[in-house]
């Protein structure tokens, strides 16, 4: 079907093509929101609750989160659980950079949000958002698995609306 953007009828055809693309976008977002692939990342107490969320009682597989990947290139969700120390900072930056777009970040727990109880120390960054952009903040010390699911569902809503950065 040849398109000639000079005439009105062709512009309508063009618009129809674009509407089709937007519907695809909605479909992709819906698919993405139900199949996040979290990266296996964690330092400290919070990832124990992430483990518990993945285990039998809480079962994150209900929300499509069970495909946990060890390799950043295969993951699209970075759940930063735990404090970011000076030594860990380059590791987090590198891992985040290796993740392909679109990717999301959940700042999980008080340490990741603001440094938490260790804020007065000399070796913790004041929150992971000082080095990478964050989509969802979920407070807790540690974050209960139920709260983790709340964060997941909020992220799902965000993704379904299309409200996220593109690469």
């Amino acid at each position, binding site marked *: 079907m040849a398109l000639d953007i000079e005439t009105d009828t062709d512009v309508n055809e063009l618009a129809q093509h674009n509407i089709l693309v937007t519907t695809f976008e909605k479909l992709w977002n819906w698919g993405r929101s139900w199949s996040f692939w979290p*990266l*296996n*990342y*964690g*330092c*400290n*107490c919070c*990832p*124990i*609750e992430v*483990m*518990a969320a993945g*285990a*039998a*009682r809480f079962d994150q597989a209900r929300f499509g989160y069970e495909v*946990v990947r*060890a390799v*950043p290139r295969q993951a699209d969700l970075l759940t930063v659980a*735990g*404090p970011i*120390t000076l*030594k*860990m900072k380059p*590791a*987090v930056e590198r*891992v985040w950079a290796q993740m392909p777009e679109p990717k999301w970040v959940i700042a999980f727990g008080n340490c990741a949000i603001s440094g938490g*109880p*260790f804020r*007065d*120390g*000399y*070796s*913790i960054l004041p929150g992971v958002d000082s080095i990478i952009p964050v989509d969802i903040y979920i407070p807790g*010390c*540690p974050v*209960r698995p139920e709260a983790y699911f709340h964060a997941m569902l909020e992220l799902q809503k965000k993704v379904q609306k299309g409200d996220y950065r593109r690469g």
Partner: protein
Amino acid sequence: MLDTDKYTVNVGPVHPSTHGGLHVEAIMDGEIIEDVIVHLGYVHRSVEKIAESKTYYQFAPYTARLDYLATNLPVMGYCQAVEKLTGIQVPERAEYIRIIMAELSRIASHQIAIAATGIDLGATTGLMYAMRDRERIMDIFSMTGGQRLLSSYIRIGGVAADIPDDFIPQVRAFVADIPRMIEEYNSLMTGNEIWAARMKGVGVLKAEDAVAYSVTGPNLRASGIDFDLRKADPYSIYDRFDFNIPVRQEGDSMARWEVRIEEIAESGKIIEQALQQLPAGEFMSKVPKNLKPEAGAEVFHHIESSKGELGYYIVSDGSTKPYRLHVRAPSFINLMVLPLICRGGVFQDIITNIATLDPILGESDR
């Protein structure tokens, strides 16, 4: 013959099997490990410096965040150290409740060790079974302290509140189930042929090396040394209970695994005896609002934590805040033998050895 190359492989700090942020640099000659260099500090949260700016009461929750898998053990150790420093006496009922919570924490910690070793070696089902059983302990902790994981139920002077009515039946039911749990872990994993191939003879730690490197806990007992602080230097009321110390002679990963499983059974025995002997009485003694130990006083108190000898060295200057607080972290010291037991093995043995040494990086790095 095949020519081999020398190269370096980095494991971690972002890795599914490194128990937190552990970075291990493996120097390989073909398939064989020549040397292993351990890099720590990825979870260093300046806890000892923070202790100098918090009061003794305020610092107690930080100790829970040291060994966060067996939280009641480091908190109990800290509270006992401060009680030694200040001469506070803990009521009998509180002592028994503390022992029950401490031993439940030991079981929870060993269950995570079982779960983590399972998934590190590829047995995901082991993770699911052990975590499912551990959830019952989390329920008991929620019931008493309000928190699943980082419970601050044990306080300086006793415990925060008396046990609720449902506590004793739930704990009894859990303890009665321990033989069934151990049977399941053994039939799922210990007896498995692949498990044995990956664990037997892997990562052998000789007894004299274990003592020379200050290794403590199940790692020491798996190398043939019968040393457990609950019997060697008894604290609290451990001398009132009848329990055994599991010891193995082989010193390999399988021995460390078996010692931990047996310790779960022994902890069950202690809890059952504590429930039977539990007296009525106060749950907290009268403690001053501003706790000021004597100036110049110091204490080194150590307990048998699930990872080994956990010690607190506290120096007081007479104020409400410690002048110096040092945590003798068993995981930090136990990791010193990782290069020793990995040399000469193959790459995947690094993962087995880390898993069976059972370090916890929060405590290791403080």
